[in-house]
């Protein structure tokens, strides 16, 4: 009887452990990469699967420097992302970048859009891979 109760406890707690996976992943693997930039206080993280897309909108203030960091779990493979300015012009494209973050200054306050796209890989078996994707934003006063 005691064993049954312990099994019930374990079954119930498994999803709770899974909930905090993105939070832990972001804290351990992503936030340190912001370096000297002060992190934004909004948690923008989701579990994505192949073929998924995500979009983030945020206002960036004039007179400040920013780092936008895209952080994804390896299981998702190469996640494509772009950053476009208020006019819709693509400023950064992960296809042309050799690092996982984008640093820039802002001369005029504006809304910037970040688009993420998880490649839709053909399935070789009966499994779909899920993984966390996080968009982190850090700022610092213009140096």
């Amino acid at each position, binding site marked *: 009887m*005691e064993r049954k*109760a*312990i099994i*019930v406890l374990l079954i*119930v*707690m498994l999803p*709770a452990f*899974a*909930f905090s*996976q*993105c*939070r832990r992943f972001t804290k351990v693997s992503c*936030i340190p990469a912001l370096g000297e930039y*002060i*992190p*934004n*206080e909004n*948690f*923008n*993280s*989701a*579990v994505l*699967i192949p*073929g*998924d*897309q*995500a*979009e*983030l*909108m*945020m*206002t*960036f*203030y*004039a007179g400040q420097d920013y780092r936008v960091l895209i952080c994804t779990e390896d299981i998702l493979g190469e996640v494509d992302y772009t950053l476009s*300015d*208020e*006019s819709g*012009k693509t*400023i950064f494209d992960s296809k042309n970048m050799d690092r996982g973050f984008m*640093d*820039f*200054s*802002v*001369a*005029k*306050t*504006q*809304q*910037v859009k970040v688009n993420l796209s998880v490649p839709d890989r*053909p*399935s070789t*078996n*009966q*499994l*779909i891979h*899920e993984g966390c994707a996080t*968009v982190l934003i850090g*700022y610092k*006063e213009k140096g």
Partner: protein
Amino acid sequence: MSYRMKNISLWIFAAALCLTLGLTSCGDVSKDDSLTKANTAADGQTEQQADRVKKIFYSIPSPVEMVSLIQDVGSRYDYSLLNKVENRTKYSSAKSKAVNLGIYGADLSYTSVFNQNQESILYMSCAKQLADELGVSSAFSNETIARVEENLENRDSLLHIITETFYELDAYLKENDRSNISAQVITGGWLEGLYLASKMVQMYGKGNELSDRIVDQRLALKDLISLNKAYNKDGSLDDVLMDLESLEAIYAEADAGGSVETQVAADGKVTLGGSPAAKMSDAVMDKLIVKTIEIRQKYVM
């Protein structure tokens, strides 16, 4: 305790835990775990894939960005502007606790930016107590409080700790299907930043970087309204939305400014924008300031 009593206690504990976890986390299981799931559809695309919609986030600038500018433009520290710590016991509903947690968080950023150590401890304590009452104790752990106390003299480290703490709080709320509470905390923080900037403009005058930043809030406000709408499934954010929309109506009277032109310097450094910024007449600015103070006053009581 007898063996039978132990078993009964264990079952009661298991049942209580089932109920608690079920209540706090039942909405997001399929979204927020990170497991590998079986593909069962015949055409190669699972039902799970077919049902997926584009995930849209709205991120709001941190209050610390506003209060840092308040200090940069040479304003003097004014403790009387902040929400009084004694007010904390007046907040009894989840909504008032959440909004004022955001307000106290912005006040904590303000005291920290100005290196006011004693006040920073007081506001950290207020924020912690409201977080505890909202069931989000984990973000304000003893370790976090100790880190704050150790770094009181180091402004940059302190700001990092504060923003990381509120980031952790936001993560916890979102992962536990309490995004409406998260939206209220974020709204409180944004509103307090706008309020403090407004009071400074009243004291020191318009036509400076701070009044420009107030004008620029129209964009953050647009995202904040979208964020609150996205999480307003049960109508709990109707009142907040009404207040934000009343500010939006005033912002609509301002000139939106010119189009942007992004520049890339020879060294690869990217600068976004550069064209004329948005403008707001003094009369509209005054109206906005009065409305901001009125809404903020209603929340702090």
